[in-house]
């Protein structure tokens, strides 16, 4: 990550504009124990109270790290019931990084956020239909499978 992804100009700009970056060695205590870190790189998205919302383990290229961080921020907003804020992060993934590994989960969570905002179950069905069309082999398409019946 330090050799390839973090020096990338898009990554530098994205992190500078959107996040507070904190880097520690894998054996730094008590953080390593608090976050149960067993391998590196481990990248975790925290809210401003220090609560974890998303993590990845292993190398991510720049075009995977940025959508993964957007997903982390989206999940944080979702888990704090800030659905409109979550949607803005998730829709950026779908617009700018539709081929990324984070995109199927973003699609799924976007459907859930839209449902939570409106209580319209058709939005969950719509999420499944888009997932099955665009990401037929994704685990998130399988997780949305029951929504086809709504």
């Amino acid at each position, binding site marked *: *990550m*330090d050799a390839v992804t*973090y*020096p990338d*100009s898009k*990554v*530098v*700009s994205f*992190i*500078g*504009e*959107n*996040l*507070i*970056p*904190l*880097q*520690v*060695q*894998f054996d*730094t205590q008590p*953080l*390593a124990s608090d*976050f149960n*870190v067993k391998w*590196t*790189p*481990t*990248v*975790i*998205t*925290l*809210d*401003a*109270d*220090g609560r974890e*919302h998303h993590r990845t383990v292993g190398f991510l290229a720049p075009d995977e790290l940025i959508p993964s*961080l957007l997903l*982390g*921020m989206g999940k*944080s907003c979702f888990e704090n019931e800030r659905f409109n804020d979550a949607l803005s992060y998730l829709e950026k993934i779908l617009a700018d990084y539709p081929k990324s590994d984070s995109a199927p989960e973003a699609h799924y969570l976007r459907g859930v956020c839209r449902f939570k905002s409106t209580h319209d179950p058709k939005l969950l069905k719509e999420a499944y239909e888009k997932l099955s069309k665009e990401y037929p082999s994704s685990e998130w398409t399988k997780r949305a499978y029951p929504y086809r019946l709504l």
Partner: protein
Amino acid sequence: MGDKIKWESSMDSALARARSERKHVLLDFFNPG
């Protein structure tokens, strides 16, 4: 922006900045090799 990430090295300072700047924190555990 600058050409390098300006990493914080303490959780307390990162969270203080996150609260004041209304941002999330990227926490990276690395192995210096």
